[in-house]
């Protein structure tokens, strides 16, 4: 059985400008919503506060619940979760109970008196400001280290420029210490780290790393934007989902890059963008299949996994889709754009030879690269781009 014809040749590269616009629109929309709402709705893990999940034994609605709790909690946000018949609600408030008295017990009592006995408190999460701050710090450091490791790994693995990548790592670490010393808040730190990384990729001539990182940023921005749009809470689990889908998105990007690298060595006469298109089409079968299977599994989690990991699976669903999308429409076009920009910068014969040599990122210099990448068993057939 075949889902994708082996000789498929969709012009993905040609569509890239439309794709840029689509991505741009979604991201812009998401960011606007983000600003309009004043930032992401932070869960108790990061913002501090109390979250109580209650199961009622008769139908009710958020307003009634809020009224019932009026005395104890001034400012509660109540939300229904699960299916209609579950009668489960999430009560969220900024109040915390530091003394070992109990907000949750008071809430349980109040609800019993308003609704009668039998209302169950299923779960309580209370995070004080100190721990909230700790978790925020941890999350930001996690992002930073993930970025660092990923940038180093890709540069080294794909461009065999381990030295460059280690330099980049070193500069990043130093840069971050400096920024931290200035006392910038952690969000700016991450933004700064990202910016520094991308600039370094440019200057150290690491287009693959550049493409991979940009597609990563693209995925994260879209996911965050959609979360802002549907006003879901950003909790520690969602953050974990974000990090995981970064890994997955890279996974996908690497598959395509791998094929590009392989093709680059085989046929030097082919135009760069055609070769990239070919690589994408060749890996299309695998990309579609894997995305489908992972999407299916996560969909099962989303539908049947219960309320607690609902938001987590939602984030991962978005991530799987954008992960594949970005490998095709963000990472690869960036390679092409980089090539074009390089060509414009070097209007010399050397550059023209570079074009003919089917898009070696390094015009004349490294012949040994091609030798390294000649895999065994690929001998024959000047295989042209599948078409």
């Amino acid at each position, binding site marked *: 059985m075949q889902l994708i014809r082996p000789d498929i040749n969709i012009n993905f590269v040609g569509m890239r400008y439309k794709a840029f616009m689509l991505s741009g629109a979604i991201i812009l929309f998401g960011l606007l919503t983000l600003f309009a709402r004043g930032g992401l709705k932070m869960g108790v893990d990061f913002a501090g506060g109390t979250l109580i999940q209650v199961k009622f034994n008769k139908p009710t609605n958020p307003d009634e619940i809020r009224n019932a709790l009026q005395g104890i909690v001034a400012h509660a946000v109540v939300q229904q979760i699960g299916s209609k018949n579950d009668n489960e609600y999430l009560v969220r408030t900024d109040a915390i109970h530091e003394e070992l008295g109990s907000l949750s017990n008071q809430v349980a009592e109040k609800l019993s008196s308003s609704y009668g006995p039998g209302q169950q408190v299923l779960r309580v999460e209370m995070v004080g400001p100190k721990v909230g701050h700790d978790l925020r710090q941890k999350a930001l450091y996690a992002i930073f280290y993930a970025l660092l490791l990923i940038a180093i790994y890709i540069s080294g693995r794909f461009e065999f420029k381990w030295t460059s990548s280690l330099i980049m790592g070193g500069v990043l670490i130093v840069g971050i210490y400096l920024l931290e010393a200035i006392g910038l808040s952690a969000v700016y730190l991450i933004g700064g780290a990202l910016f520094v990384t991308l600039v370094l990729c440019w200057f150290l001539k690491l287009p693959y790393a550049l493409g991979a990182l940009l597609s990563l940023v693209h995925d994260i921005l879209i996911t965050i934007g959609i979360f802002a749009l549907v006003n879901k809470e950003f909790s520690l689990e969602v953050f974990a989902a974000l990090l995981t889908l970064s890994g997955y998105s890279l996974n996908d990007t690497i598959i395509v890059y791998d094929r590009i690298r392989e093709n680059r060595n085989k046929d030097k006469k082919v135009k760069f963008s055609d070769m990239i298109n070919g690589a994408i089409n060749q890996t299309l079968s695998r990309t579609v299949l894997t995305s489908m299977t992972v999407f*299916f*599994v996560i969909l099962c989690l989303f539908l049947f996994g219960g309320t607690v990991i609902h938001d987590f699976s939602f984030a991962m669903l978005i991530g799987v889709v954008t992960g594949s999308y970005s490998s095709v429409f963000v990472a690869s076009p960036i390679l092409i754009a980089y090539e074009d920009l390089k060509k414009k910068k070097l209007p010399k014969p050397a550059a023209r030879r570079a074009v003919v040599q089917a898009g070696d990122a390094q015009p004349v210099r490294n012949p040994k690269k091609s030798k390294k990448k000649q895999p065994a068993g690929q001998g024959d057939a000047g295989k042209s781009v599948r078409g």
Partner: protein
Amino acid sequence: MKSIGIRALLVSVLLVIGIFCLIPTFSSSPLPGLSNILPEKIHLGLDLQGGIHLVLEVEADKAVENAAETYVEQIKDALRAKKIGFTKVVRTGAWDIEVILPSGEQLNEFNDSIKSDFSWLKPATTETTPEGTRLLLTMDLKKTNDLRTMAVGQALETIRNRIDQFGVREPDIRPEAGDRILVELPGIKDPQEAINLIGKTAVLEFKLVAQNVTDQEIHDNKLPPGAKLYPMRPSDRNSSETKVPLEEKTVLTGQYITDARVGIGGRSFGEAHISLNFDPQGAKLFDHLTSENVGRKLAIVLDGVVYSDPVIKERIPNGTAVIEGSYTDEEAKVLAIALRTGRLPAPVKILEQRTVGPALGADSIKNGIMASAIGGLGIILFMVVYYRFSGAIADMALAMNILFILAAMALVGATLTLPGIAGIALTIGIAVDANVLIYERIREELRLGKTPRAAVDTGYQRATITIMDANVTSLIAALVLYQFGTGPVKGFAVTLSVGLAANMFTAIFVTRIIFDYLLTERRLKELSI
């Protein structure tokens, strides 16, 4: 290339080990004799079995303040013993002690006395004022640090003892950096009771009720010197709190209590009371106290609230006392445990609390497993339909993969959380990816006209590099999550990492064995792929 036989043997051995590791998890009847070598069954996280997770902070500062207060009393006693006159000895600021001597005469005696008996107190300033010679004593840093560490250690012990008596199956109580204590109590039916118990400071004091104070004086707060108003717990639930004037000096404290028991009956039938037993020293003090003060009321003050103030009818020589009052059985039980295990050296504050009721925990397990099962089943079917027999081979590898993940977790003692189950589900999805990569490559090679054997060779070769590359990035994400994540998120990182590692083994090594077997031994001419 290693022979098929050796490779198959290796895999079989691993399989058997894996199955054995999982026996405790899936069967409740333990096999005699084996239970020592086999690992325990898989630990379930709090989000799956229900329970409480608490991060407490000991207010160590208060402990140092309390210590300073004790030193004030001790200094006064020492000065009286050495016949050094003093006008004032009092705690000021956080934990400094201010001393005013009537004149500079005995200054040197005073300094010597402090140096010998209270070496950790240093006179920071000495000045002559109209009131006399005023000294400010400060505690040295080492002492305050010691006091803090001791406070945290004591709090840890007290909490441990209380939870022990409360009866929790596998409590986990650990100190953490920054005066913090981590408490995890799995499978608790009534979390609120446990929380109440942990936090009770349980400072028990006996004080005499001030005599001859009229209600009007209480109302106007004009009390005789040495007396102070204390709130009193209402005798039944409906009346409001009242205030009682007590003499400040504590005549007996809870440190002499050896036992505290809950009993039924007492003033009102059916209400619980707590009977206390004192140790010999306490009994003697109590004897003295009661014989000197017959007819006066003795207030029993717990955590600054008067619980009852019975009249001392007669001398009590045998060192027992009863605290009566209207509380429920649970309240009395909690109180009794708190009194038995002694007071907390300093108040304890909750920084983080996560409670999951057992109902939700069981639900989560059910849902998580069901979702994963449906997902897994769907994929298994799909693989067989799409890749035919090779798909079946991949499915076998998938099943083995899951087995290895669970076995590894049992072996290492890792904890399975709800996100961990999601991680296993995710691994199922990604596991298939590896096989897809290999099979697509094989299909490509076959289309080019290669023989099955050559196609399989090339397919595995090219694909392996790509699989490794791709899995490394997911592993990086999992590693970072493990390092910086907490509880449930850590569980997710663990299952994801183990899953990816196991996946590389099963998808590449194990399936290859089967292909090789079919192609060489069975001399298969065509691949069903």
